[in-house]
């Protein structure tokens, strides 16, 4: 089978490894923005090649497809989906796994995703306000309380400000930060002025996890849950990143998520997919994911949607998948997913750690252009995998950082203690050659962090149980104002 994979990073490297491990003979070609050494190798070993093109340009990708003439095209990242790459390929008669432009709107526009949930009364929805006009946003944010300020459009997971505002004596400075964040988002996204720019949403607390699925539009095949770790640094400190690692297992659950919570999550995912397709009038063939949080407010709660596999979430599943993954992708693309089963190794868990150059994510220029080297043999000896992410092969044959997460280490074992130890050992085989520091999170997969998540899950479960018993799920009561009654809008501050 001849496959064309579109995308350049570690997510695509994980997909490439899953695709080439198919029982069928596979010839893998890759359309990537830069020469990712990992993708290049996977392609060439299978008898295919890597094409360096701008994957955000539908015509360019279609050109590669016409040259390769694949049986299946897999579109990995969201940005090409937003630009209509999958549509251009389908128009030319290719069988494509990956959301169309219309379907990927569920990720591109954070407003649309939320609107869907409210319109159809889907549980796990948060209160929000979206703004096209700077002056309206600025006016609203003056009165906002305990909220999250986000760009209304997906911009690589950047620009999210979580401003917990529960102490009146710090509220003034927080209001200033919210206003500053609104202003900055408008400046950065000015080109999208016809669209919503800023989203202000209810802040919730709890335990985050990702629920991914594969669908052909009518049949939804859920994947095991994954927890990813967005903070750049140890102890969940610092910047939001695309994800500094993740864990999954055992089975389909996580150590701190129950079967009931998993099932409630799958129900939300299923309903959103159904309503999304109705709303946009298009068939969804591809990967879909809910970035979820277990909260006291709702139990499983939607933070945002992805119209693709998560990165690093798919890496976490890669070593645990026992089925022929390519067959599932192919059947989803051909609307023949009904009855398909995914077998994953029930008794193993996985730990993924991203390795990034110091300076990522706030100072990407500084973090770029550093030569790095990996002893892949030693990583393989440990039974772990290495995924190439934001690294590029230079004309001198050396590998250079491109400013984002450079590698992902993927280790699976029978329990977290072992998987953690393997991953910790494996990261030591990635080195920088010019003395520029690389960093990773040693706490991911550790007993301490798992314990902390378990405690947090217990706390929010108690809140959830008491809200459920009193019939107030999803409801927040902000303040009682004498003469006006209870203000139930959680976006408003009791102070202003």
């Amino acid at each position, binding site marked *: 089978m001849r496959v064309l994979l579109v995308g350049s990073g570690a997510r695509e490297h994980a997909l490439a490894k899953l695709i080439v491990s198919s029982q069928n003979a596979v010839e893998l070609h890759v359309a990537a923005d830069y020469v990712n050494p990992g993708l290049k190798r996977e392609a060439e070993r299978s008898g295919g090649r890597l094409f360096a093109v701008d994957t955000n340009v539908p015509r360019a990708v279609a050109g590669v497809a016409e040259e390769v003439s694949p049986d299946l095209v897999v579109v990995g990242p969201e940005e090409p989906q937003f630009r209509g790459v999958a549509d251009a390929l389908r128009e030319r008669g290719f069988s494509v796994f990956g959301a169309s432009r219309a379907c990927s709107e569920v990720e591109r526009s954070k407003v649309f995703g939320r609107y869907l949930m409210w319109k159809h009364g889907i549980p796990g929805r948060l209160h929000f306000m979206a703004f096209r006009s700077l002056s309206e946003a600025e006016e609203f944010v003056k009165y906002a309380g305990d909220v999250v300020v986000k760009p209304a459009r997906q911009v690589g997971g950047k620009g999210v400000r*979580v401003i*917990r505002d*529960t102490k009146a004596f710090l509220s003034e400075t927080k209001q200033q930060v919210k206003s*500053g964040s609104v202003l900055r988002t408008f400046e950065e996204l000015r080109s999208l002025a016809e669209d919503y720019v800023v989203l202000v949403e209810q802040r919730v607390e709890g335990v985050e996890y990702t629920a991914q699925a594969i669908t052909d539009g009518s049949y939804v095949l859920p994947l095991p849950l994954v927890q990813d770790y967005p*903070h750049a640094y140890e102890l969940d*400190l610092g910047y*939001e990143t695309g994800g500094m690692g993740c864990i999954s297992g055992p089975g389909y659950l996580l150590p701190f998520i129950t079967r009931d919570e998993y099932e409630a999550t799958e129900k939300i995912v299923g309903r959103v997919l159904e309503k999304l397709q109705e709303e946009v009038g298009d068939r969804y063939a591809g990967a879909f994911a809910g970035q979820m949080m277990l909260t006291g407010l709702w139990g499983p709660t939607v933070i945002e949607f992805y119209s693709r596999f998560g990165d690093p979430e798919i890496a976490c599943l890669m070593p645990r998948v026992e089925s022929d993954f390519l067959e599932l992708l192919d059947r989803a693309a051909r609307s023949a997913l009904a009855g398909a089963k995914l077998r994953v190794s029930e008794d193993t868990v996985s730990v993924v750690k991203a390795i990034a150059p110091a300076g990522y994510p706030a100072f990407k220029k500084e973090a770029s252009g550093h030569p790095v080297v990996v002893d892949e043999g030693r990583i393989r000896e440990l039974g772990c995998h290495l995924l190439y992410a934001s690294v590029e092969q230079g004309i001198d044959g050396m590998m250079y950082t491109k400013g984002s997460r450079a590698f992902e280490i993927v280790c699976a074992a029978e329990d977290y203690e072992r998987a953690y130890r393997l991953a910790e050992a494996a990261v030591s085989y990635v080195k920088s050659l010019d003395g520029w520091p690389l960093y990773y999170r040693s706490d991911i997969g550790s007993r301490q962090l798992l314990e902390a998540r378990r405690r947090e899950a217990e706390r929010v479960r108690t809140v959830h149980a008491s809200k459920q018993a009193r019939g107030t799920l999803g409801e927040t009561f902000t303040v009682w104002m004498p003469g006006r009654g209870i203000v139930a809008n959680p976006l408003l501050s009791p102070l202003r």
Partner: protein
Amino acid sequence: MTGILSILAFEPGWELHRFVSYGLEALSHRGGSRRLVCWRRSERVLCGDLESADVRGLAESGTAIAAWLDGRRFDGQVIEGENAVTLSDRPSGLLSEIARDVERALSTDRPYAKLEEELRAYEDTSVPSFATLTSGGELVVWRTNSGLTPLSIGGYGFDMAITSSETSAIEMLDADVRRHLMPGEGVYMSRRQVRLFRSGASESGRLCLFELLYTARHDSTVDGISVYEFRRELGRRLGRYLESPVDVVTGVPETALPYAVGLSQAVGVPFELGFVGTARRERSMMKESTRERLIAVHLKLNPIRRVFAGKRVAVVDDSMVTGATLKTVAQLLRYRVGARELHVLLASPKLVSSCPYGVVGLDPDSMISAHLDVSQIEKYLDVDSLAWLREEDVEFAARTFHARFCGACFGIDSLGGDR
């Protein structure tokens, strides 16, 4: 000994002045009389009293360290180096040497690795925990190998990292406590990297027993131990030493209240609030002169008469230094209110010597239990009975809470240790 605080804002636009101000307020019970804050400005680190600090400069700096300074000898608590300032939680003659070593480590390629190496030399128990801020916006916070005083790290969303002597400050700043730094552990932070490092073996680390007995706030968590629960547990142990029947259990505000709650629960006698204070809360034990100490004691102790009149009373306190507080309590209850019997119980062993590490600033000459026997003290205080916890009780609590303590001022070298 005092409290230290450090804040690193990953994102711009935060008015750090407010965070420092409220953070220090939440550490004010740890002693000190002057609030110093340091921030960076055009490749230099500036320091000043919080009252007169440059609010805009602090916001632009994005990083700050701050401490309560001990009025007497703050020169040993602040070291202004070439490119960095170091603040410690107590004065130490070694601080200038440490500050120099830290600055040297920070000038290398891999500062966190070098810090591990440099700080290993300071196994000595008298070394204080400290925070260093460099002109380049790097922060180093280290908990001394021997541990004595606590440090915790917190996070505020994607925006801030905070370290504090006590968790109370992190929580008051609307942030989440993420970890307690254990003895020998430190953290290196900048906007480009955050690294935990460990220097030396924490197995030899011990926490100052006074931290849990007296210094920390009830709402803090020290090394994973709930201060309130620890105090209540020691109060329960006091039940073994109450030999006469009593009608009511009370505690000397505020530190002793959880001990009194524990004793009340252990012996099944009601706990009652006994005193109301006037003016703001003062830590009487930390006062300099006898006059100041007595003023603080007298201000915090107006009795609620109906609780005590004609009653047999168990009065609980955390410890006894000069006995001045308990003397005041006894006189008030016996003569002004008319309590029938007074039984005093102390939730710690007898204080007998000075702190060899400079953590607790108590003068052994002023420790009544080092100079008089029980019957003499009973007579002086004018109480019917007087009892202290024993070493075995604190040992029991140490094991219950998986802690290791230094009890040098109680004449006990080390307690607990099944970490």
